[in-house]
């Protein structure tokens, strides 16, 4: 566990850079993490991020399949928003733990 300053905010992150306390997250933190990955966030991105955060807060584990069926975004759309890391990058930017599902 390490502390990192993201967008002027002190946050706890794992070795791989996933936030460990989702309450430390805000939109500026998201934008800076996305920036590091090379993604510019749009409203559609935030719609997905908020969905991921809601599901995580409810204790549900996420898979690309469940997100694709959420009605928020389909699988193709998810890949478009978060190229090369539909679940990993989106989780990182959403300030939630690294996904544990293989699917």
């Amino acid at each position, binding site marked *: 566990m390490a502390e990192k300053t993201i967008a002027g905010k002190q946050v706890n992150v794992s070795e791989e850079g996933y936030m460990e306390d989702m309450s430390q997250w805000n939109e500026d933190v998201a934008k800076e993490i996305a920036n590091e990955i090379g993604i510019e966030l749009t409203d559609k991105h935030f719609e997905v991020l908020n969905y991921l955060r809601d599901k995580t807060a409810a204790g549900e584990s996420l898979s*690309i399949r469940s997100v694709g069926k959420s009605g928020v975004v389909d*699988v193709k759309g998810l890949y478009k928003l978060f190229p090369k890391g539909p679940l990993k990058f989106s989780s990182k930017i959403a300030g939630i733990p690294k996904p544990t599902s293989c*699917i």
Partner: protein
Amino acid sequence: MEAKEKKPLEKVCMICAKGSLEDVYATLVMANGAVMEGIETKVFFTFFGLDGITKKAMNHLHTATTGNPAMRMPGGLPFPTMLGGLPGIESAVSSMMRKQMEELDMPPVDEFLELITAGGGEIYACKLAMDMFKLELKDLSDEVSGILTIGDFYEMCDGDRTQIIFT
């Protein structure tokens, strides 16, 4: 100490030659996993593996209930080989397995293929095996990009951070 430079995989090429439930799913899980990691992914289905992309067969794959020493009864007791050979048993066990997989959010094969191609993964059928089983492109899932010879497939497997995986 010398710091070792990480050399992440850039491409995986997978070959699925067997048509049992577990063989096809091993291929699909690994292929989809690679796509989700941002790795370029090509999957080549050949011989009995073609069942995994054939419209008629793909959502009804079976697992072998005879000759499979790892097969157990629900609860963990050994599964008698004689029982596995009775009519209907293989079908019943296989549908039970598919149900359990569905509970773990593993999609049916047709949907799994869609997941892979939605992320840019490519799926191919082996020409020789297609001829052998008298199959045509129209018999295959719409997610299949084409029919290739093994030579064509090897040509796609270039690059020094490429791995070929045979499942």
